[in-house]
């Protein structure tokens, strides 16, 4: 049993604790430790990805308790991929936060940032549904602090909306877990997969309720219409590095949908087959349309970037919703791309906002900004990536999705929506870019108060932005190996027997027949550890 699987959860927790306890007054030290920790996380994530690439499913039993009774962390190709993506994004965004001085505008930025990472990485690694809930709460409570970082009335009010919305989501999650536990008597995902498959079809009414409840919880996290209302205002009001890190948050929801609906409620489970993908496909397409219309209609760059996030989630879920290996490969490729592109867009928007003074990110004419040429070039790159135009990986991702849905009954609808919404996105992004960078007023107008605010430093933020662009270019150039890895990932996802065998042990665990009266599956949870102890 490799102990490295717990490292992506443990390391940020230790670093966050250290940051808040022993160096809360030393911003310089905080930066060194925070960035160093994020760098080590990338190295660990690479190691884990190399380990998972062989196809072996790594299992870490917390506290040494065997699988259905204790909590397990599971490392397969999908979770390794998401962990690696998160850590790479985290380093780039952290560079930006340090370079643009965002971490100095309020207390405990770095500590909250690492707690947030701990929650996200834990959510990707866990193999237990209740543990997934706990990691969701960890990442949410850290995000509550990050959203209102640096304060301000607008941020506070957007933060309250965000918190209340997510508290409702958490409540719904608990209702879903209670229902599923009542039906199956377990919370371990692999164990639940086996029991769901064994439930006779006529007894599955509650199971279906639980499955749909769970899907709606993840839909809240992924911001799928009509549960997306928390996202645009929150992301537009949040500090830029936080919004950029949140690019991975909606993907946590998408990941959870993919994990649960391939492992537990897979395409072979007759009780839930059809309900989930049917619900998901149409909501995803509407989400995509609304996101791209939002890009066209946004009155500020912040909202524009937020709606781009909504649209990207719609695109990847439209790919996911058919639940075939080919569409999953395409959706996963688009997930990697849209996370990087979404973060890049938020960072570029912030560069513009920081330099426009009173005009902020509003789409109105204002004096030209300092270092406008390079920022405009970055905007151009981010816009191409977001809209999915060649030569960057957004184009490859959309092409993969369009290709994967060929032959499906709904192909005409998916093609129409994806292509038309891409056009809308191009229009919106081009319009916003030309408004910001070309339709400027005379610079002489503000010459009087120009010395008062020196332009913020650009060196480190530019490094961060170019890291992300480099990653996107790398994703484009190495599309073939990436797709090969994703094909192996999808193969693993749609044949969960390896996963279940790795978690529950080679031989199927003996489930004693349920006694009459209380509990059906539940007794095993308390009975078996005793047997272990006695043996």
């Amino acid at each position, binding site marked *: 049993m490799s102990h490295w699987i717990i490292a992506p959860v443990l390391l940020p927790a230790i670093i966050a604790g250290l940051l808040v306890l022993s160096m809360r007054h030393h911003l310089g030290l905080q930066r060194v430790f925070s960035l160093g920790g994020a760098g080590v996380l990338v190295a660990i994530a690479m190691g884990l990805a190399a380990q998972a690439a062989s196809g072996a499913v790594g299992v870490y039993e917390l506290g040494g308790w065997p699988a259905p009774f204790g909590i397990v962390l599971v490392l397969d190709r999908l979770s390794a991929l998401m962990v690696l993506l998160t850590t790479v994004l985290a380093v780039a965004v952290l560079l930006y936060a340090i370079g643009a001085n965002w971490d100095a505008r309020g207390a405990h930025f770095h500590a909250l940032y690492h707690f947030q990472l701990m929650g996200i990485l834990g959510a990707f690694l866990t193999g237990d549904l*209740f543990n997934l809930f*706990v990691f969701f*709460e960890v990442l949410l*409570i850290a995000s*509550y602090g990050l959203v*209102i970082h640096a*304060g*301000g*009335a*607008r941020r*506070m*009010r*957007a*933060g*309250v*909306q965000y*918190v*209340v919305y997510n*508290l*409702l989501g*958490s*409540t719904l999650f*608990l*209702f879903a*877990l*209670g*229902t599923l*536990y*009542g039906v199956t008597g377990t*919370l371990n995902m692999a164990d639940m997969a086996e029991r769901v498959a064994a439930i006779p079809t006529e007894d599955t009414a509650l199971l279906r309720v639980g499955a749909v409840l769970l899907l709606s919880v993840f839909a809240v996290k992924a911001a799928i219409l009509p549960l997306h209302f928390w996202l645009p*205002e929150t992301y537009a009001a949040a500090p830029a590095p936080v919004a950029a890190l949140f690019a991975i948050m909606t993907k946590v929801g998408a990941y959870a949908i993919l994990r649960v609906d391939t492992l537990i409620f897979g395409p072979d489970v007759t009780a839930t087959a059809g309900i989930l993908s049917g619900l998901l496909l149409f909501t995803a397409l509407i989400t995509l349309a609304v996101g791209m219309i939002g890009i066209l209609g946004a009155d500020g760059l912040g909202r524009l970037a937020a709606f781009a996030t909504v649209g990207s989630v719609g695109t990847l879920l439209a790919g996911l919703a058919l639940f075939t290996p080919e569409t999953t490969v395409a959706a996963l490729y688009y997930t990697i791309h849209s996370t990087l592109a979404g973060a890049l867009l938020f960072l570029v928007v912030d560069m513009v906002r920081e330099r426009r003074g009173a005009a902020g990110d509003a789409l109105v004419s204002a004096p030209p900004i300092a270092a406008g040429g390079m920022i405009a070039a970055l905007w151009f790159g981010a816009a191409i990536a977001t809209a999915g135009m060649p030569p960057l990986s957004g184009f490859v991702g959309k092409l993969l999705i369009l290709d994967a849905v060929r032959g499906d009954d709904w192909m005409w609808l998916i093609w129409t929506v994806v292509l038309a919404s891409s056009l809308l996105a191009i229009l919106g992004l081009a319009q916003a870019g030309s408004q910001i960078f070309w339709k400027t007023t005379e610079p002489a107008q503000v010459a009087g108060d120009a010395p008062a605010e020196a332009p913020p430093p650009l060196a480190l933020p530019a490094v961060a932005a170019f890291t992300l662009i480099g990653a996107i270019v790398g994703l484009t150039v190495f599309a073939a190996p990436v797709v090969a890895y994703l094909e192996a990932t999808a193969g693993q996802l749609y044949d969960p027997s390896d996963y279940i065998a790795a978690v529950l042990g080679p031989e199927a665990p003996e489930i004693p027949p349920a*006694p*009459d*009266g*209380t*509990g059906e599956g*539940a*007794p095993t*949870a*308390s*009975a078996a550890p*005793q047997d272990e102890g006695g043996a």
Partner: protein
Amino acid sequence: MELLVAIAIGVMTAAGIYLVLRQRTFPAILGVALLSYAVNVFLFTSGRLALDMPPVLVGDEYATGTYADPLPQALVLTAIVISFGMTAVVVLMALGAYLSSRTDRSDIGGEAESEARP
């Protein structure tokens, strides 16, 4: 017994949802608190309702089925702690939002903004 618990959960959930849909943050926070009570009781019932039975197995409780499922109790404990912490956070944030913008309305934009201006 089952009926009573079910009615209690239903009433608390309905009241919670009604309060959350109000447009001011204070009722919304009360509503979230009520919802978390409802879900905690609901989690209890997911392990079946068992009266006067021990959650710990010492003798032949497993064979006779005379024990209470201990797992939901652990889940509820976790859920209570988390919802308690979350409620504290949202109260603080709501207070901060009220003090900085002088309005308790939870929607952003439109009349709330004009109402807020001194």
